[in-house]
């Protein structure tokens, strides 16, 4: 007898995989503008072959018709070599297969710092930078939000609490917007901090100074996100905990004379962990998409700015690579979260979903 839970797991897994497939395929179509980019590649190829052949002294002796024939033959040959002789729709499926197996191919225009055109290299080179910046930011946001939220929920009606409600609308402006101001103030006006980038140019040689330089460059981007998102975070958590503080079982816990810290831990935090963790994980993964605009404004060499560069240059292999990685990450997270949910909430573990 296959347990009900296992069937559910398999079903979810398959559905999520399907989601990744469809999302990737859609991106492939869009990134190639339905084949238009390939047309550009083809005409570029034709022009360069044509140019090469005409410039080549070996072929000087040939007449026009012969040259034309030669160009066309070489062109057709090259096309076949790179598989472009088949229509786009057919190729798009091949791209899909490659993307899903993470064999991401070579970029069209972009190369990595080390000169490689491998999409995987390009992405891997920049991924740690994004992870560094945004994981730090998200961890800070999460901790501040959680502690401030718990703290304020206890002090409902106090001045601090009312301030937190008052300041919440400040988060209607995105992080990059505050970023512009911070750059204006600290970089342009006060000349205290750098305009952007991840590290001083030229980068310091020894480890410690390098790390310090990176830290210095992290200050403004992290600050811009904290200023932008701490207000709403604190407000949401505080409201969340307030709502859960008025639950009946919290009332009884108080009647039982349990100490405040125990009530917070067991009666407020524990039951609310599933949604909080889900929230955090999804936000974290989302932030790895590197808040494209923030990275671009601060010139941070992460995958967000890579996204922007690749979008503008229509470097479709890079775009598809980024999207498929993100899709897998997200699907995986959602999948794992459902497990965690079940562990944390006994009501689900028992089989009722």
């Amino acid at each position: 007898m296959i347990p009900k839970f296992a069937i559910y797991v398999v079903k979810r897994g398959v559905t999520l995989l399907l989601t990744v497939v469809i999302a990737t395929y859609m991106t492939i179509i869009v990134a190639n503008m339905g084949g238009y980019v390939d047309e550009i590649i083809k005409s570029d190829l034709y022009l360069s072959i044509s140019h090469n052949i005409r410039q080549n002294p070996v072929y000087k002796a040939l007449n026009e018709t012969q040259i034309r024939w030669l160009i066309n033959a070489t062109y057709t040959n090259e096309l076949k070599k790179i598989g472009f002789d088949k229509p786009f729709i057919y190729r798009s499926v091949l791209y899909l297969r490659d993307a899903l197996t993470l064999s991401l191919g070579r970029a069209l225009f972009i190369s990595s710092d080390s000169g490689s055109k491998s999409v995987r290299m390009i992405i891997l080179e920049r991924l740690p930078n994004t992870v560094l910046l945004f994981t730090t930011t998200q961890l800070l946001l999460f901790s501040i939000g959680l502690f401030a939220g718990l703290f304020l929920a206890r002090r409902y009606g106090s001045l601090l609490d009312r301030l937190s409600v008052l300041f919440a609308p400040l988060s209607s402006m995105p992080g990059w917007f505050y970023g512009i101001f911070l750059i204006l103030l600290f970089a342009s006006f006060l000349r205290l901090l750098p305009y952007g980038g991840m590290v001083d140019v030229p980068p310091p040689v020894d480890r410690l100074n390098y790390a310090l330089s990176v830290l210095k460059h992290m200050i403004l981007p992290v600050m811009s996100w904290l200023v932008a998102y701490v207000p709403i975070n604190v407000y949401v958590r505080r409201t969340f905990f307030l709502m859960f503080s008025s639950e009946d079982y919290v009332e009884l816990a108080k009647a039982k004379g349990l100490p405040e810290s125990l009530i917070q831990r067991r009666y407020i935090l524990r039951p609310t962990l599933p949604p909080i963790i889900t929230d955090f994980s999804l936000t974290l993964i989302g932030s790895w998409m590197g808040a494209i605009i923030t990275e671009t404004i601060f010139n941070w060499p992460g995958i967000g700015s890579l996204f922007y560069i690749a979008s503008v240059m229509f470097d479709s292999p890079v775009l598809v690579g980024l999207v498929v990685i993100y899709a897998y990450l997200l699907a995986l997270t959602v999948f794992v979260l459902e497990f965690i949910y079940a562990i944390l909430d006994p009501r689900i573990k028992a089989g009722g979903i």
Partner: protein
Amino acid sequence: MSSIKQSFRTLLIYRSALIGLVIILILVGISVYTIFAIPYDEATKLWRAGERYWLDNPRNAMPSWINLFSTKKMPETIVLDSRKPQPGVSKALIPVFDRITRIKVEFSFNYEYDDFPSELNLFFNSSFSSSSPQLTIHWVKPNGEDIVLKSLLVAKGEDRYYISNDEKLAKELRNAISKKINGTIEYDIPLTTLLFALEDSSILNPNTVKVMKGNYKLWIDGIAFEASVNLDAKLVVYGKVHGWAGTDHLRRDLGIALLWGTPIALSFGVVASISIAMIQMFIGAVSAWFGGKIDNLMQRVTEVFMVLPFLPILIMISTFYKFNIWVLLMVVIALSVFGGSVKNYRAIFLQIKEFPYLEAARAYGSSNLRILTHYLIPKILPTIIPSIVLSVADFVFLEAALAILGLGDPLAPTWGKIINDAYSNGALYKGLYYWVLEPSLMLAVTSLSFAMLGFTLDKIFNPKLREI
């Protein structure tokens, strides 16, 4: 429905909502005024007009109200046109001998500002048949000194002399003044400074150079070799401040873009919010009500969209198609309708579906559509209204973000576009803060007002939050 009216009345008690509402009304007022005062086609025409239209404005000028706050009075632009009778302008065409006409145009003005003009240009409009009149341009400083700036032959029709760009003249003047005060001017002193500065040792240092205040005169002494000749001239002494908003690198009055940005931002934000929320709600309702296969399908589609990276795809499409802003709006809506909120709405509808009065409605034979529109949707409106108001700010910033990245409608005068221009022209490096701050302020005010209103609405409409 009456409970919604009552809720709105309660709304007015909250101060922050009131402030937000007032600001929104002001913005709407500005939009309405702008739409009527400067119709859209005219505005876009002006905005694209190029230098010809804006030629009388200074480049990168700060807003004039800056002078209220600084001890140093920044100059405003002075325009003297021989075609328009003004005090200080005189023109005379004096026939001398047969077929020789003496031309004399005089511009005199008082210069009392503490800072130097940004540019100095002279424009001519002449009509003659055969040979160009010969003009000599004189400059008279308040101390009486008369300098010849240039002698030139003026072309027929429109011609110009960009005085401040005259490198040769600048070098000559610099040497002349250096000799006069027995020192050498080491720094790269602009011509406008040379023409307006106090000629003493203060001129040697760019931080101490002072304006010679008083009456200045530019006069044109010309000879034409025919009888029927006409020469008109316009002298523009470009200031460093202009209007209530300043100007940009193309001399355009930023006020126009700031004003027009308002209705564009408001309509973009509001239309996007409302349409997306309504469509999402409808999808959620259909999904919950019909259940089964339809529900399943909608849920899967929603999940696919949730995984799709919205912003990158938007960027890609924008780069390729260079949209006009209203088409961009459509694309944004299309990409957002299957977003995550559909799941939330569906969850609420699933709850409402079980309510007994719905069973009653079905029992007396209401059609599905009627139940949807008369029962389900009004029940959900109180939850949806706050989220609509709150998401307006997001869409305003989305449009601004695309514009800042250079991907928006290149012709629409929006706040984001101003910031984009500012960034591309190095506003932050050149210290032209107003260029960035003004549109940013508009963005901030707009988003804050909607957010304040939205948060309060949330407090009122969300029953769980009511006592909090």
